[in-house]
């Protein structure tokens, strides 16, 4: 298999595999969206 074919196959091995991030996938959310940054600002600047 040529170098190009190897890359296009998506197969990772040897040095190429070492350069990959740990293989984490997107999981499902565990909480609803909360505007914590806006609340942080209000709590910081409201006396």
């Amino acid at each position, binding site marked *: 298999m040529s170098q190009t074919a190897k890359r296009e196959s998506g197969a990772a091995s040897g040095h190429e595999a070492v350069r990959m991030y740990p293989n984490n996938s997107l999981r499902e959310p565990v909480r609803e969206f*909360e505007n914590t940054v806006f609340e*942080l600002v209000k709590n910081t600047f409201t006396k």
Partner: protein
Amino acid sequence: MAGNIFRELEEEAFFIAHVGEYITSAPAALHPVLSCEIDVAPDRLAYAHAEYVQGVRRFSLYLQSGDPDHYKRAGALLHALYLSKPIIAVGFNPKLDEVDTLCTGLGVSYGDAEGSLSFGHFFDEYHNEFAAFGLAYDTCRQFEAEPRPINFEFLNTMCVYLKNNGNLSVESLFMVFKSIML
């Protein structure tokens, strides 16, 4: 529980509506600390969407799963908004240089007026960075069982970091979220 927001953001119409709504809601949500009107450019949101999708796809190349986690997608979202700067105008009412903390209106305390003035100056300088990080951080923490809170000093530091560095990579911003959620 709603759907997976990071997947939904890959769809352009949803991205523009969701991100635009978050940004334009800021003045009302932050009242009375913030009294201003902001203009958000839809074409910049469209540009941000294209950058977000590109950032996610870039990570996909380095993952056998091809499905980047929430830290990487939060980094891609922050990077897209950091590049596109969707807020194009901020108009304070009253103007910041007209705010007199020693002569406040009825029902407005000295402390509230001082806080409004202080955050107003911050928002005037860092509105895009603040909105970008706020949305990316709060979206990222939806995926954490025990998300670590941040304080205003961190938020301030993050905004200055984004503003002062014009060539940040998606991967450096991914590492920000990976680090603060540990």
